[in-house]
């Protein structure tokens, strides 16, 4: 889970691009109340900018017609919303039961010892960020790693190293 203690401002205004604008309009009519759009809008903002800034929160609140504090409340409650920039490759390692039983710790140790990042951290060059996450629903092919949303199953240290080597 990333640091959720503060909201970061980019100093530039935020607005959905044309594609997300259309997606917002497609979805908003699907809900009887506009507040239901807060989560979808947070997703769209994150997909567009990589993370959610103070300006994005303001924009979403404005667009939906609610208070920024309501949007922020959800952005902090739901841990997948990133309130600060993440690395070009955001690595999520499952730390829960089945992955733990099948050796996820090797991967976590490798990231700490060789890549130099602990959960919640990012490499200095901004290439990799890393968090430990809860069960990813792929326990039969544990241990599981998710990088920028793509699943990588039946990982071991060797495969994980090879995978990282392909990321440029």
């Amino acid at each position, binding site marked *: 889970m990333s640091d959720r203690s503060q909201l970061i401002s980019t100093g530039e205004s935020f607005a959905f691009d044309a594609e997300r604008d259309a997606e917002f309009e497609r*979805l908003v009519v*699907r*809900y*009887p*109340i*506009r*507040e*239901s*759009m*807060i*989560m*979808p809008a*947070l*997703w769209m903002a994150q997909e567009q900018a990589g993370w959610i800034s103070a300006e994005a929160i303001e924009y979403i609140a404005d667009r939906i017609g609610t208070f920024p504090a*309501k949007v922020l*409340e*959800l952005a902090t*409650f*739901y*841990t*997948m*919303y990133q309130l600060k920039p993440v690395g070009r490759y955001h690595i*999520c390692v499952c*730390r*829960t*039961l*089945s992955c*733990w*039983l*099948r050796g996820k710790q090797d991967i976590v140790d490798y990231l700490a010892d060789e890549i130099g990042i602990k959960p919640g951290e990012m490499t200095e060059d901004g290439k990799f960020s890393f968090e430990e*996450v*809860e*069960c*990813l*629903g*792929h*326990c*039969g*092919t*544990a241990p599981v790693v*998710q990088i920028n*949303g*793509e*699943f990588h199953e039946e990982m071991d240290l060797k495969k994980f190293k090879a995978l990282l080597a392909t990321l440029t």
Partner: protein
Amino acid sequence: MEVKILSAKFGIENAHLLEVAKQHGAYQTLDKLFSMTPEQVIDEVKNSGLRGRGGAGFPAGVKWSFLPKGLDKPVYLTVNSDESEPATFKDRHILVKDPHMLIEGIIICCYAIGCHHAYIYIRGEYTTQVRALQRAIDEAYEAGYLGETVAGHEFQLDVTVHRGAGAYICGEETALLESIEGKKGQPRSKPPFPAVVGLYDSPTIINNVQTIASLPYIIWEGADAYKQYGTERSPGTHLFGISGHVNKPGMYELPLGLPLLEVIDTVAGGVWKGRSLKGVIPGGSSTPVLTPEEVKTVTLDYESMAAHKTMFGSGGIVVLDETVDIVELVKNLIDFYHHESCGQCTPCREGLGWMLKIVEKILAGNGSVADIDLLRELCDNIEMKTVCVLSAACTMPVRSYLNKFRHEFEAYVADTAS
């Protein structure tokens, strides 16, 4: 042992695409469905004995019949695709390999309960899965299976996907509703039950993905065909997920009622590395653990699990070999539930944190016998004193480890003394 009802199309290439799915029977039930009355559909589902596959095992048709009649409000269906209980990985196979079976099931359920807008709540981590699902929904709209009419029948139906964003608690049905309403996922006190006051204050049915996906078979083949599988009180088949220390972990569709040990040995290839068995978690991480002795007699159905003082749960079976450190495992478990507590009840928010600290203290070699007893006492004081059962999902299994593997906790404590 394996059967292919729900997984019938899983092995077929591109069966997630409408064109291919249709060649293998997708949407064939619709003409039959609309020739029945909604009451007949509910009766057929009741007769099939289909039980909710989200964990609690409540009969689906019975749940539907709780909807109040004649209210001047819309009825909603929300499909629970949160799939976040550790060791559970069944629903996503449906989402990716046969999403049209789910959509067909949604049509059946909505027709039966008079719902014209269904929401599918899918966990945020399911990225590739949500793409597959949305694509199938788009295809279904385009082909006229969803929208103003359903396959030419006078029945309007919309299906909307709502993505979660990393909160296990949103699998709890009322937290899920709050989340769709644009709030934090904090469970509601019950009653009122969602069937009466649910989504947007309207009558709402919440069912698991696998429950809904079982409907096309039941309507097409009939309740009796479904009941050929499984046991009398636990009919049908289930997508079991077997993980942990076995040679062939994976998702297997099996009829209910099979002996657990046989399933582990034959279907899952037995305990890996020639090691012996220490225990089995039968239905997701919140279900009490079974010892090797108990594993010999239990069968995979709701009744046998209850008789063994555990639960069928979500069918996520975790096999533990002799090397597992039970105290470390308990720490991993508590860590999960503590992290996922929504925070509104003190016994859950604080109590699970205390439990975690005590286990960490024991693991660090600083614990005493009194700490083991305190852990046990905390379990009793937290359970059933909270708004939802997330806290019990932690304390029930922890108590089972304390009862059945107390010696492992004592070993840590004894080590310090010497």
